[in-house]
């Protein structure tokens, strides 16, 4: 009988123990929970526009602790990672061009989020070398289904390439492909939003009002995936999914006739005015939900300058409203924190980051950040060391040249040590993929620095070329050029021949021309990291962690449009007709020659000649003789034989047919 209480006790104990163990485990693995955070970075741009950069990050702990189930992390993505053993992957859908000159090209936002128009996909696989292509092909199909886009066109080996070192440091297992002509629309955004735990129903993503975000000047939707640690050092970091949406929007403003002399106010804006919506609270599943407002270094410096000038004049009028506004502008919401950039060497003012937490806002008290300018201000964004642009040279359908031109933005001079400027060098990495029908002759590479042609060996530091193979693989060029720091401008040109495509290889709308995807220009010596404070707590904010990453500055060049020779696609009918005619003539005459018996024919003609002749033909030959003014020749002469082919029968037939035709015509009308 004593057994029962003992068993009960044991059971109780077991339960308690389990409880304890479970809670223990839960306590121990706080960081192993799946996390989601949502952030929005706003930044006024010098040309009266506003940059809005949404950043959503979902982390999944390593598989071992969680099995195959996820709380927050999208299962589709984790399956993708598992299936294809993706180490890193990035997919971006972009519409419009990033204006490097006006919107900057140096800091992390453009460097990471300015993407070429259309679709860009690259992925690093953790599979043996020979399986990479197969994995890539399957991945493109999977993504194509997932995002409702024609990413599956990247499956063909003519459309992707395997860069060695020009694009990404990961070598060997990287594949890269772009679709410049892919149109981006809300059907691509919806599946992307589906990966978020709150979709666009709550939290910051509720701002994504489709008409307003697609009305923008630039729209880039990106998905970056860092896979689980399949890497050799055994550090298991789980999957990190970063979803960003970068849009450049124009705040509504009243159009006023402006003259050059008039001072211009930057447009004031608020979240409602640019998105038409407000944020009513955060997504409850999000660990953090933050909105940032960033002011550029140059803008801060400009404001300080203006302040200094004005303080002397209106010193008594200055009333600070705490953090709520800096000099010259006013924010409608009090920021929770103001962070200042910690910058090292360069001696400009730091950029400012106003941090707003959305969590405390709710339906009744929605978050609607607004910025009102009080003084006119003009500034410019920080540029990449060189401004790269690419264009086509030449005309006609035969050959041409690609030129990449670099203009110095004078950044390098003050970034690098000014004392060593004569000897210093500025390395530029170029990665360019060219479709096979643009047959680039890589030996024709010419580099001009400051309008002087340079010997290739002097300028080119490292080059790797894999020439295109017709209908098999695109041409790819990775190159590091070393320019002197004091250089003003440089041009690199490559000549090419335009190839011919088979008629069924032409895409729809072939007469538009063919695209050469953007080249990727990166500057290995320049890093686009921005650090805000040394506080460890800030590292928990993913967007700031992202800003701190030491990535080199990257920019993309324009997509080029090459007009190729295109056949007249309405022509096949004509071609068929003429081919058939030629075949008929050829075979007809061949058969004629083969089956002809000369002797028999002559006999036949002789018998026919005997019967020949009639009054009408006689008359006709006389008539023709009169017309030509020649004496009437005897019928035996060759001319008369020739004229006699207008026999009476023929004339009769013709007249008959013509008569019938006329009569028929009149009776039918």
């Amino acid at each position, binding site marked *: 009988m004593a057994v029962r209480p003992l068993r009960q006790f044991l059971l109780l104990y077991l339960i308690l123990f389990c409880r304890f163990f479970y809670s223990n485990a839960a306590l121990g693995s706080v960081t192993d929970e799946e996390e989601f955070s949502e952030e929005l970075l706003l930044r006024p741009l010098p040309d009266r526009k506003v940059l809005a950069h949404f950043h959503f990050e979902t982390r999944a702990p390593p598989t071992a602790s969680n099995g195959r189930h996820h709380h927050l992390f999208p299962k589709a993505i984790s399956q993708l990672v598992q299936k294809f053993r993706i180490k890193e992957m990035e997919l971006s859908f972009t519409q419009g061009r990033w204006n490097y000159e006006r919107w900057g090209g140096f800091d992390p936002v453009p460097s990471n989020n300015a993407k070429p128009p*259309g679709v860009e996909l690259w992925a690093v696989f953790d599979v043996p070398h020979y399986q990479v292509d197969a994995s890539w092909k399957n991945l493109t199909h999977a993504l194509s289904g997932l995002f409702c886009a024609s990413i599956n066109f990247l499956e063909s080996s003519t459309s992707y390439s395997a860069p060695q070192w020009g694009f990404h440091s990961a070598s060997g297992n990287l594949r890269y492909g772009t679709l410049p002509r892919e149109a981006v629309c809300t059907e691509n955004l919806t599946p992307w939003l589906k990966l978020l735990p709150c979709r666009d129903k709550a939290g910051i993503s509720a701002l994504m009002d489709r008409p307003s975000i697609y009305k923008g000047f630039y729209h880039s939707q990106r998905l970056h995936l860092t896979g689980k640690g399949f890497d050799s050092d055994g550090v298991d970091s789980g999957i990190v999914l970063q979803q960003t949406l970068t849009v450049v929007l124009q705040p509504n403003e009243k159009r006023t006739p402006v003259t*050059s002399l008039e001072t211009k106010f930057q447009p004031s804006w608020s979240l409602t005015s640019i998105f038409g919506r407000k944020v009513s609270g955060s997504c409850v599943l999000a660990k953090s939900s933050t909105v940032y407002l960033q002011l550029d270094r140059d803008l801060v410096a400009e404001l300080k300058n203006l302040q200094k000038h004005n303080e002397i004049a209106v010193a008594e009028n200055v009333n600070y409203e705490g953090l709520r506004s800096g000099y010259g502008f006013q924010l409608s919401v009090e920021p929770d924190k103001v962070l200042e950039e910690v910058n090292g060497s360069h001696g400009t003012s730091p950029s400012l980051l106003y941090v707003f937490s959305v969590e405390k806002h709710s339906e009744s008290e929605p978050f609607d950040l607004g910025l009102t300018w009080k003084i006119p201000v003009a500034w410019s964004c920080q540029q990449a060391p060189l401004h790269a642009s690419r264009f*086509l040279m030449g005309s006609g359908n035969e050959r041409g040249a690609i030129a990449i031109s670099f203009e110095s933005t004078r950044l390098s001079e003050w970034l690098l040590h000014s004392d060593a400027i004569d000897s210093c060098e500025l390395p530029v990495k170029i990665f360019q993929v060219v479709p096979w029908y643009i047959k680039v002759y890589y030996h024709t590479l010419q580099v001009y620095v400051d309008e002087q042609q340079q010997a290739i060996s002097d300028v080119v530091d490292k080059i790797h070329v894999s020439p295109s193979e017709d209908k098999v693989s695109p041409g790819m060029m990775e190159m590091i050029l070393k320019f002197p720091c004091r250089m003003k401008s440089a041009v690199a040109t490559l000549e090419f021949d335009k190839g011919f495509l088979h008629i069924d290889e032409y895409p729809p709308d072939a007469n538009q021309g063919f695209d050469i995807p953007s080249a990727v220009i990166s500057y290995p010596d320049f890093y686009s990291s921005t650090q805000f404070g040394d506080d460890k707590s800030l590292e928990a904010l993913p967007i700031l962690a992202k800003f701190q990453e030491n990535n080199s500055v990257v920019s993309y060049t324009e997509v080029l449009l090459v007009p190729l020779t295109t056949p007249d696609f309405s022509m096949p009918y004509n071609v068929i007709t003429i081919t058939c005619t030629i075949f008929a003539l050829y075979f007809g005459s061949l058969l004629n020659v083969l089956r002809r018996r000369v002797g028999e024919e002559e006999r036949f003609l002789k018998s026919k000649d005997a019967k020949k002749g009639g009054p009408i033909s006689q008359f006709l030959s006389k008539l023709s003789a009169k017309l030509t003014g020649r004496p009437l020749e005897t019928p035996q002469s060759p001319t008369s034989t020739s004229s006699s082919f207008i026999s009476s029968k023929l004339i009769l037939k013709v007249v008959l047919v013509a008569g019938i035709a006329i009569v028929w015509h009149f009776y039918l009308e």
Partner: protein
Amino acid sequence: MAETEAPRPRQRPIVRLGIFLISHSFSFSVVCCTAGVLALLLLPILAKNTYISENALMPGSANPMLSNQDVLEANRFVKDLIALNSKPRGSGIESQRLIAQYMKDLGAEVNYHKFHPQITQFHPLQFFSSPDSGTVERNISCSFHGVNTVGITRAPRGDGKEAIVLVTPYNSQKIKQAEALSLGTAYSVFSLLSRVTWLAKDIIWLVSDSQHGEYAAVSAWLRDYHIPMFTRLHTVNAETCPDINYLYDVRDNSVTGRKIYDGFKRAGTMAAALVIKVVDRSETFDDNLNIYAEASNGQMPNLDLINIVNYLAVHRQGFRVKVEKLWSLLDSKWLKNLGELFESVGQVVSSINPQWKFGIPAADYTEGIATLASSLYNQALGVPTGPHGAFRDYQVDAITLELSPRASVDKIIRQNDFLLRGGRLIEGVILSVNNLLEKFHQSFFLYLLTSPGKFVSVGVYMIAFALLVAPLPMVAASLYADAINLNSSQNNEKTVADEPGTALRSLKWVNAAKKVFVVHLWGSVVSLLPYFICQIPNRSPTVSFIIWFLLSVLSFFIMFLILASPFSHAKESQLHLREWAILKSVTMSATFIGLCLMSVINFSTAELGGLLLVPMCLMAQPMRRDIRVGSLSTLSRLAYNLVFCLIGFPPVTFVLLKGAFEGFNSINVGDFWCWVESLWAWSSATYLYIGMVHLPCWVLCIHILFHHC
């Protein structure tokens, strides 16, 4: 019919047809030539109405967005521009700065393009080669440069692969009211386009500095756009020219004042280009729009481009659209009579069956012919009719729109209305081109216009030319056959065993061919001579022409002595009765080949050349024979021959044509030289045609005419 010899077997029908045609070559050639000329005169009646072939264009499907606000701003711009004229110093540079400032205020990317107009030089080896800038080395002086101002509006959501170009030529030294208005029209459109969201292609506004010619500025910009030079040789040495540096010190008082980019801005592949000009012609009835489309060597832009302009101008903005016509033809009596004749024929036809649409009103017919003649003439000349011609060299479709307002535009209300309508027209055209996904390819490239809304396509106008040249091979064959027959019968009468005789007989055409070849060789020498004459300094056109003429004659005799004398000597020994006939037949074949080749390169040149050459070739006969016979018909033929040979001589043709259109009192011998100089400056194939086909043929005809037989 005594069967003395075996009857020759009947030949196959196609051979028989050939023999028939050859044997009746005279009547055949008369019929064909008449039909050819008639078909040419019938073209206005056969012309079809234009239609918009590319569905994507959708002209006029959207309401114009250009508002009075834009027009007011454009007005302010025009006023500021004209106000510059009163300023004393360097109005050229000032105006470019003003334009750049206005562009920049619209948010466009602005840059200046400095250029030196290319010196027209005759490069015999680069006649057909694509324009390139590599060969030009020049000592640059600051006074001789132009500065184009280029503004680029990027399509907000476009991918920047394509661009549409707007060109407004203006003289930076002295801005006229009309030019300022054309700039104002373009400005109103540009300011609208910098705000709209529907743009898919970038817009380039090129304000070309036309002080060295409208074409030169545009072509210099296009050359730098497509074939830039990266070495220092090419760029203007900025340090020595203070004017140019002055451009860049921007007054930085404006807040938006970014520095103007010191380089060359580009924007994708060009889809189409519109050149906008306003002329102050004070039209009496309506606002007029003249369309100029002919580019070098008779190339035309795609018909769809003209169609959308015509459609929008007529149906949306109420312009009177015109294309160039030969005014002198409009009041010619015989054309009116012909038109009335065709009209009455058309009435008869329609009375038989109302569904047969043949014939147009006589007035329309005259206008059609005048337009057609001008279209043919401009294409044949091979010289572009405006700055749009520069675009065609880079396979870009372009036209010039010449707007001329009714009455004078001094009244501000009139001016606003004019700007609004002109701007809306251009906005509509750009909207249509912007809709275009592919480049222009759907509609015709080979056509002649008979009115802005009517065209003759290649399939129709080829008939006239084919009929015209068809007699040449026929008559050549018949002459050859006759000559062979005659000689063989002569030989038969002589001793048959005359071996060298038969050998020479078969070689006879070779002699003639050699002669023809020598003359053609001479023709190419003549067309190369101007290159050397150009090297002579300080020459007037008259002197050059006389030198050219004398050198040509000299070279002719030299060549004939060196190359042709052995054969002429051989010919003396074996005098054939119809040696001239063989020569004529070979000449005709060569002319036929030349004309057909030319019709591929430039149809209109071939057509006009054919009208001159074919009758001359067909009728050429030795004078002596005609005089010997002395009947009325032969004498009239003689007179006809002489007249045609006189007309056929290129300088005479030129003088006659010029006299017919401009009056004879202003004609100078040097004019022909100037004309020829312009032909090679534009690298017109017509020049080659005159040197290599027309002139040799004319010389050979003269040779036949004075043949001693």
